[in-house]
């Protein structure tokens, strides 16, 4: 009985995680949220696909001109997680980005390796209790930190005057960045609440451009429905809020940078044996990006993971 319970836990408990892939698209904000991950006892590998679009080069007071660009950021990301011990976990992700930009009189695209990130997590809390006489309450809290490497190409010319208004159209930041994360999950039987907070501290790249630091918090409610043995689906709904400080270009503040974005999320996670498939869709509830010179549109994410 006890063992069986444990197996079910390992297979179907949903655990959060974070990633800062695609960290440029969204004006320094956006792209931090990856949804809810399946738990894994040893190793996990996965593929994640994101689709984000932005409208950039919006003029004063929202004016649309021939310079106004529609930018599409697609990222395919290979990621892996490894539980070194029951309390320590390492996760890494290697993104590949497909960026496209289109305005009335110009078009461009950039494809290539993005910024690789590695994160370590420590499990501060893992508690199971029985409440209300027969209900199971499970809580986990992970804290972690990591680095994001400057493996994606950063082209300093794209920052230049007249090229683009916000320095977003890059494959990577060109900088070594540090992250700190906290993830808390509380679940009463099948109903769970998932809270994630992340902070990313960026350093200046070798061209003296320093993307603003980012804070990302999200809250999701999910409900697990068992559909078969070792198989369940979990619809989720929530909000996430992201805010970024303004960039620094050498010693100058970049006025057209930073901002905040509040997104609503709906998603679904499915687990079938050792395979999990998930998707979510996010829509902006409120935003002020790059002093309103950039507007975020709806975005979506799909992922596939295998527990090894």
């Amino acid at each position: 009985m006890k063992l069986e319970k444990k197996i079910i836990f390992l297979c179907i408990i949903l655990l959060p995680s974070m990633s800062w892939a695609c960290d440029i698209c969204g004006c320094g904000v956006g792209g931090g949220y990856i949804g809810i991950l399946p738990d894994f006892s040893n190793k996990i590998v996965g593929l994640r696909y994101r689709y984000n679009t932005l409208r950039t080069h919006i003029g004063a007071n929202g004016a649309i001109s021939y310079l106004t660009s529609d930018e599409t950021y697609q990222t395919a990301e290979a990621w892996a997680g490894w539980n070194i011990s029951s309390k320590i976990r390492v996760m890494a992700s290697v993104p590949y980005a497909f960026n496209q930009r289109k305005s009335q009189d110009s078009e461009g695209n950039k494809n290539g390796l993005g910024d690789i990130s590695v994160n370590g997590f420590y499990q501060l809390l893992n508690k199971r209790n029985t409440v209300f006489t027969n209900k199971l309450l499970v809580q986990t809290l992970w804290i972690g930190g990591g680095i994001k490497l400057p493996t994606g190409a950063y082209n300093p010319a794209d920052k230049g005057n007249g090229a683009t208004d916000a320095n977003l159209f890059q494959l990577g930041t060109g900088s070594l960045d540090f992250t700190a994360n906290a993830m808390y999950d509380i679940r009463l039987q099948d109903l769970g609440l998932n809270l994630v907070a992340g902070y990313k501290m960026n350093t200046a790249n070798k061209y003296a451009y320093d993307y603003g630091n980012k804070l990302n918090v999200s809250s999701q409610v999910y409900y697990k429905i068992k559909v078969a043995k070792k198989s369940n689906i979990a619809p989720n709904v929530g909000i996430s809020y992201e805010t970024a400080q303004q960039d620094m270009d050498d010693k100058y503040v970049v006025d057209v940078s930073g901002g905040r974005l509040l997104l609503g999320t709906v998603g679904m996670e499915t687990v079938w044996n050792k395979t999990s498939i998930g998707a979510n869709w996010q829509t902006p509830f409120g935003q002020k990006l790059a002093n309103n010179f950039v507007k975020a549109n709806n975005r979506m994410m799909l992922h596939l993971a295998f527990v090894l």
Partner: protein
Amino acid sequence: MPISNQHLRNIMRRIILIAMALPWLVTSCKKDTATINASTELVPLTIEFDNIVGSQNLALNTGIYNANAGETFSVQLLKYYVSNFKLTRTDGTEYVVPQDSSYFLIEEGNDDAEEAHLKVPVADYAAVSFMLGVDSLRSTMDITKRLGVLNPTGSYSDMYWNANSGYIFFKMEGVSPQAPVDATGQRKFKYHIGGFGGATSPTINNIKTIKLDLTAGGIAKPRKDRNSEVHLMVDIDKVLSGTNKVSIAANPSVMFTNYSVNIANNFSAMFRHDHTHN
């Protein structure tokens, strides 16, 4: 064992503490912003005049645009003088660009003549004002004081009428199916707008001063090692379709006549600030 409320509260407190501490820890490391150099040294500030038609970029010769009442037109030539630049700092004080370096001829299609290159003191500027045209004082000065784009005898003579009429402030020519056939068999329209008030006898005055607030589109922050650029959109759609509606069929050629006042009164609505690069 049932979980206690106290225990839950402790966990929540821990999470909140971590979440609150993170931004604090990191923001304290952030660099200070640059302080403004108070020296009197002048630094570059570019005002770009980007000619557009509505939401489209103006394409000489090839672009076909809608005017009023079903009329369409293409632009073959577009030139205008901008002068007497003044910049208002965020504290409300004003810097007047020395007049000798404050006359520019904007010429669509000539990449070297789509911007006004100014030299200004280091400051944060929240507004720019300039004249569309050439002021009466300069218009009546000795020819030795009217150099460069104001030289009426050289390659800019096509922008000058005579001593009393002065410079053609704004010149737009093109073709339209609604314009009558001229001697060369083309359906041309010509708008040559000017008039500073007259030197020897009074004339119309079509000098217009344009003042643009830069706050919404981004204030200009010219600095020594930077190239601050204020990007203005100049919507030439407004020339014909501004407050005063100008029919190409009825007025295919407007030059130094009283009717030109109607077109000149449309000028101020042409200009808007789009964005700033600092």
